[in-house]
Structure formats: C-alpha cells, structure tokens
C-alpha cells in the first residue's frame, strides 16, 4: 500500500501513520484536520482537507494517497497534465464520487460519510463550474442563472430578476440573457455557468478549466473576476487549469498533480524557482522531462510494425 509518507515532497505528511485512511473513514462529522496537517497554518483556515485520498476506476488507480489543504479565502490552483484526474478530484470534493480510501472533509464534514440531505445542504454552499458548462439546454440564459435561486429560495420575482442581471453583468453577458444555450459559444456558455455558480453566493467555488475557449479579452476579465469574487465576497476558490501563466497570476497556492500523486506544491513564486525536474517541465511547458506526453502504450515502432 502506498501511504502519504512515501511522498518525499510532502514534508510533515510523514506524521500520518500508514493505514490512517481507514481511521479517517470513520471519523464523525465535525472532524477537522489535525494540527500536524501537511500545510503550515491553523486548521481553522483549512476549508477542504484531502487526506490520503485514493480513487480507482476499475483497475485504473487515479489517485494514490494524496493530501491537500485548500485554505479559506485563498485561490488554490490544481494543475497537472490532461487525464490525471483533476475533474475527478473536484467530483470527489463535491461528493459525486466515493473515494476508495482516505477522505475529503469540507468545512469539517467528511463528504462521503454524509447522508444525502446533509450532502445537499453542503452543496448549496459550493459552486461548481463544469468544464462543459453543463447549462440546461431547454431554458434560456436568464432562466439558467435563475435556476438555483428558484429551486432553493422563495425570493419574489423582482428580486430574482435583479440578482440574475447582477450576476450576468459581472460576467459581461447581461445582453445575452434571452439567448438559448445552443446560441452561445463555448466560452460564453462557460461564463454563463459561472454566473449560475455564484447565484447562491456560495462559500467556495470550484472552477474546472475556466480559461479554455476564452479570447484574450474575456480571459483577462475572467482572471480579474475570479480574483475579485474571491476577495470581495470572501470566497474560497479552487481553480483547475492547464494555463500556467493565468493560473500563476491569480493563485495563492498551487498543487501540481501527476500520475495519482501530488508532485509539487507551493506559491507560484516557489514553484517558479523549484529545482524539481517535474515542476520545471510543467511550469515551462517543455516536451522532454519526467512527464511523458503519451498515454502509456506499447512500443511505437513495434505497434506500427504489427499493422502489417
């Protein structure tokens, strides 16, 4: 079994004994990260505590005992090559998938031990921006943003209208409020999804690749917006992204994930100076290095020859 202590990059994590994952499975809700948690700082500052998390899809191990701390009021970025399981990690945090071992605790509640009602209460306080936008296609932009308000509040129509227009104004799409999702471009759809994710003023937002498909202007606006939302509303943000520059520009702390492990972490400045070959390769986008560009496969020449 792989334990957190195998991870050399993880200083204080060695304090967590092997097999701790089993114990964490049973901790009652109300549990908070122990004081010797990997990241420095007070445990009250940690909103999401990922402990020795493992997850497998069938035979494929996607995570092998990772630990992370997402701190309150900060923007934490999770970066890593395509297909390492960044989206999967967000789904584990949101309780849509169950870990095979270890735990994720959000605001002191261990997500996979919650009952459905409790989980839904917790999710009302989380916003998630899906990679695809995931807008409801049978209603227009306005109604999409109004959807969580109509489902969870009894606000009068005039109030809903004001709130929706405010959220759409924030993402620059107030003028598009009567368009259907099929009439939006990919980048616009993602901004509408962002307006929807902040409709209920959640305590945290998870952004899955917010920058893909944005032109330089809306990209800049979006980067600003994520920062402003985070600081003005006191949110906690988790940004999943490949865009090294944009992410480094706004993140307070970055986790680099690859092959089921956390391979690097630190502030953007720390990572930029890192002497780890892996971190350097990823942050500078070099084709050669410890990370393979290819999905594991048989030898290329062999494969081609076999075709004959």
């Amino acid at each position, binding site marked *: 079994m792989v334990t957190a202590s195998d991870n050399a990059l993880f200083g204080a994590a060695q304090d967590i004994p092997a097999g701790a994952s089993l114990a964490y499975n049973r901790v009652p809700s109300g549990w908070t990260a122990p004081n010797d948690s990997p990241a420095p700082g007070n445990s009250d500052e940690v909103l999401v505590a990922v402990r020795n998390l493992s997850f497998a899809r069938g035979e494929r191990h996607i995570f092998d005992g990772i630990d992370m701390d997402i701190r309150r009021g900060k923007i934490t970025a999770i970066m890593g090559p395509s297909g390492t399981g960044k989206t999967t990690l967000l789904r584990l945090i949101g309780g849509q998938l169950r870990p095979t071992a270890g735990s994720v605790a959000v605001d002191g509640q261990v997500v996979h031990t919650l009952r459905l009602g409790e989980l*839904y209460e917790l*999710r009302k306080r*989380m916003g*998630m921006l*899906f990679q695809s936008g995931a807008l409801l*296609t049978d209603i227009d932009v306005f109604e999409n943003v109004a959807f*969580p308000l109509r*489902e*969870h509040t009894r606000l009068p129509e005039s109030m809903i209208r004001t709130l929706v227009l405010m959220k759409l104004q924030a993402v620059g799409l107030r003028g598009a409020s009567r368009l259907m999702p099929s009439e939006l471009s990919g980048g616009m759809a993602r901004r509408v999804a962002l307006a929807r994710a902040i409709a209920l003023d959640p305590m945290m937002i998870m952004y899955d690749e917010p920058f893909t498909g944005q032109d330089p202007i809306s990209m800049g606006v979006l980067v600003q917006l994520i920062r402003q939302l985070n600081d003005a509303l006191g949110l906690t943000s988790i940004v999943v992204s490949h865009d090294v520059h944009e992410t480094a520009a706004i993140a307070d702390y970055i986790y680099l994930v690859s092959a089921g492990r956390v391979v690097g972490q630190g502030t953007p400045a720390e990572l930029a100076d890192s002497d780890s070959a892996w971190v350097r390769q990823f942050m500078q986008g070099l084709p050669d290095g410890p990370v393979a560009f290819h999905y594991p496969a048989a030898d290329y020449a062999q494969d081609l020859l076999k075709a004959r």
Partner: protein
Amino acid sequence: MNVFIRLGETTLAMLQKLGRSHLFLLHVLSGVPGILLRPRLLSAQVFSLGVLSILIIAVSGLFVGMVLGLQGFNVLSDFGAEESLGVMVAASLVRELGPVVTALLFAGRAGSALTAEIGLMKATEQLSGMEMMAVDPIKRIVTPRFLGGLIAMPLLAALFSMVGVMGGFFVGVGLLGVDDGAFWTAMHTHIDFWDDIINGVIKSLVFGVVVTWIAVFEGYDALPTSEGVGRATTRSVVFSAFAVLGCDFVLTALMFGDA
C-alpha cells in the same frame, strides 16, 4: 465454457439492471409530494407528452376504428348480425385496442423522446450539474415526466377509443348502411361501465406506468455518449412494446379470463 461465462455475466447484468430500475422507481416516487406542490412542472410535461401526442393518437384511432368497422361488418353480416357492429367496435377498442395501441404509439412518440432527452441531459453533464447545485435530478427532472406520462396515457387511450368508435360508425353506418339506432343501442346495452370501461382504464394506467418507467430509466441509465443514448432509445421502444404486450396478456387473463 466461454458460452457459460458469457451467459452468466449477461444474466447477472440483467438482474442488476432490474434491481437498479426498481431502486430508481422508488427514488422517482419519493419525489411525488414535491412535484405535486409545483403543478407547473407537471403540467408542462402533461403538455409535451400528452397534448403533443394527440394528433398521432387521434389519426391512428380513426383508422383503426374504420378498419374495425369494415372487418366487423364482413364477419357479422355473414351471420346477419350487422346490428352488433357497434358493440364489436366499441368492445374491441375499449378493452384491447385503445389501451394497447395507444401504449405502443406512446412508446414510439413520447417514450423515445423521454429516453433521448434524459440520456442527453446525462451525456452533457446537465444532471451532474444539477446535483452539484443541490437539486436532485431524479426528483426535479424524472418525477414530473413520470407523472406526466401516467396522466397522459389513460386520457390518450380514451381519446383513441372515442375517435375509433367514430371511425367505426362512419364506415359501418355511413358507408355500409348499418342501422344508425341499432349501432348505438346495442353499444349502450352491452358495454358495461365496470367490466369494460374501468378495466380498460386500469390497463392503460398500468401501461402508462410501464412505458414511462422504462423510458425514463433507460434514459437515466444510458451510457453518457451519443451512441449510448441512441441505443438506450432503441431499447426503450423495444422493451416498452414487449412489456405492454406481456402485461396485456396477464391483465386480460385476470380481468376477462373467467367470463
């Protein structure tokens, strides 16, 4: 040996799916109180499943009724019993053809659309997105569709039977010269409210449950890809047809078996 392994795996997969579909139904039903408090969600579904199916049901009912009129007249006139044409047409429609053909048409027209709609919502992460917004997609999306199908089916079956009787009347009385009064009087005296009409309504309610259940479950259980949704839609129509015909036999045996 391989054959046995495959057989075993297929059987297990089928049993698992059966189990999932029942848990799914329980979940759908647990959303009923919530939906009854939001009648607008329900009426929208009754509209899209029921009202939009009216044309195909009415046209089919008319033709089936006309065929019944023709065929019935041919047989009955051999025995000099043309006056019974009204009973024959009405009884066949109310007891059998109304509920059964309506259910088959409904599976093709509305059931397949339900499966495709829910399957695509799954494939495009709309259901997932709803979960993350703390909205239960089964209760919010599936339950109103299930109830809508349940309400629409008996009404459509009634419409089918009514239009069918008109078709039979048009052919029998209008074209073939059966006596107008005899056509209706025989129908009046021989069609029983409980035995015929209520039994027919019960059948169409059962078919409503079965067809809509299969349609929404296949959509929800579909593989979230274009191909997966396509296959689910086909399965939805095929399984619905089998289920309707199978249930019809059982119900008919129970209702009319000892008469």
